[in-house]
């Protein structure tokens, strides 16, 4: 009986008063918008019939700052964009400038860069997993994920003294030689991580509620994903097997064997599986890399004052969130003429409207989580 009365209520509300559209303002202060994202949702009951992302609350004008700093001075700034994957940001920037300078980092630097970047990918995915699970209501994985992420951050701290915004690399190579027990630390982490990731999967992968909350939610077909410019795990979960690490190898990725996990349906569950598998693959890359770190210099021959010859270069790497591109124009002076950063989060977030339409408010949360955005990078 209750069913009918409540149905009547909704019917009445639609026909009599026409008050069926509700605009819900989510954020910029909301527990699950992962920062200062603001989403305006048009709701019919709890169903989303339209949405608009309002961004820019964290806009700091990074690209403008770049034009007023020297090449080296700007390097620490990029860490502040995707602050949960600072190492990846740094790698992209350093390699872009190296391309502009037409130098290449020595092999030893490349391998250490690869190790740290892959660790950073694991850390970034761990943070994603924890918060995503928390958004869907599972409290506990967050703490497990932070426990493991802590190990990675400790390795960073030992290597360069910083945990979050590391500025680990320099243009032309590395500033610091690897510390003595780096290999051992990484190996210990990787060995332990295998069983830990199985633990997370036991908590979530076959959980009926988890399946119900993620399967069929926020479907992005391959063609749509490409049209919307989605990259990284979002694109791969839609079934496009494209990873810049394989397609256009940089750092030392061409030396290692790893798989590119792809999904089939492009729903939230697929993106979950893809990221979980990516963590496993990153772990394998780390294990391969520490086996044979070549000796030699860690810094290429670059001067103290960098004046790249005029010209321009676009260099993209596979950041944890997707394609992170740097388009740098040099006019031959010590400061870049223009630095354009192609942020994966910004572009991926554009797919939000497409994914959220027709879903419920609760799914909106899951979809924001599954896009794995960092507002520092969206807004720059």
């Amino acid at each position, binding site marked *: *009986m209750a069913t*009918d*009365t409540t*149905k009547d*209520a*909704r019917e*009445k*509300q639609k026909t*009599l*008063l026409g008050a069926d559209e509700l605009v819900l303002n989510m954020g910029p202060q909301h527990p699950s918008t992962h920062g200062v994202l603001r989403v305006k949702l048009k709701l019919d009951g709890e169903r989303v019939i339209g949405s608009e992302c309002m961004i820019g609350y964290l806009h700091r004008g990074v690209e403008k700052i770049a034009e007023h700093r020297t090449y080296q001075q700007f390097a620490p700034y990029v860490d502040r964009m995707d602050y949960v994957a600072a190492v990846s940001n740094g790698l992209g920037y350093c390699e872009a400038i190296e391309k502009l300078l037409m130098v290449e980092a020595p092999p030893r630097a490349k391998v250490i860069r690869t190790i740290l970047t892959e660790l950073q990918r694991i850390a970034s995915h761990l943070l994603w997993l924890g918060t995503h699970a928390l958004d869907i209501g599972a409290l506990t994985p967050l703490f497990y994920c932070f426990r493991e992420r802590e190990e990675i951050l400790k390795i960073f701290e030992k290597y360069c003294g910083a945990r979050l915004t590391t500025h680990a690399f320099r243009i032309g190579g590395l500033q610091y030689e690897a510390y003595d027990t780096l290999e051992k630390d990484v190996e210990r982490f990787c060995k332990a991580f295998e069983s830990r990731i199985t633990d997370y999967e036991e908590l979530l992968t076959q959980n009926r509620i988890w399946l119900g909350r993620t399967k069929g939610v926020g479907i992005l077909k391959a063609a749509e994903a490409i049209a919307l410019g989605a990259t990284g795990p979002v694109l791969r979960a839609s079934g496009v097997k494209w990873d810049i690490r394989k397609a256009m190898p940089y750092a030392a990725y061409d030396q290692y064997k790893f798989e590119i996990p792809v999904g089939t349906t492009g729903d939230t569950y697929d993106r979950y599986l893809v990221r979980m598998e990516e963590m496993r693959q990153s772990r394998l890359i780390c294990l391969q890399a520490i086996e044979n770190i070549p000796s030699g210099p860690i810094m290429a021959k670059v001067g103290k004052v960098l004046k790249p010859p005029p010209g321009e270069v676009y260099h993209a790497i596979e950041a944890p969130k997707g394609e992170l591109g740097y388009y740098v124009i040099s006019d031959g002076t010590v400061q870049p003429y223009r630095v354009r950063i192609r942020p994966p989060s910004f572009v991926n977030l554009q797919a939000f409207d497409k994914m959220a339409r027709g879903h419920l408010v609760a799914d909106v949360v899951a979809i924001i989580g599954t896009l794995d955005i960092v507002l520092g990078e969206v807004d720059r």
Partner: protein
Amino acid sequence: MLDQVIFYLFSAVAVAGAILTVTRRNVVHSAIFLITALLATAGIFLQLRAEFLFIVQIILYVGGIMVLFVFVIMLVNLDVAVRQLRFARQKWVALLISLALAAQVGLMLWSTGKMPGQGVPVLSAVPADKLPPNSEEVAKSLFSSYLLPFEIASVLLLVAMIGAVVMAKRRA
């Protein structure tokens, strides 16, 4: 003495609640006062040792029907309701009906010669342990002497329920 005080307390609350229900402009406030009136009535039942009726009143009317009322009201745009006249055209009809009702009650009290003030027999306290178990008695009378009406009512409700489901299905 105590019983009477409690009775008049509950009655006053019920009457006041009922009046406020129809005079409030805000629909939600009306609903709250209706709940108050219903609860006060339930209180009177309890005082009369009709425990089963008391809990039925609470579970069905307050806990069930009023929740749905409030549910509906909250979805409705309140401004519209406020703008509408409180007492619409039916006020004469309403007055007539309430007068008739009052006359009926008065007549009943008059005919039994038990006007208030001449001793209130309904309130004479029966010791609790002397009463037969309340819910059992209700069940017995329902399933023995009033079996047919009970079953008819059940069938009626069932028909209503199925009808509602069918209508809802067709719409959806």
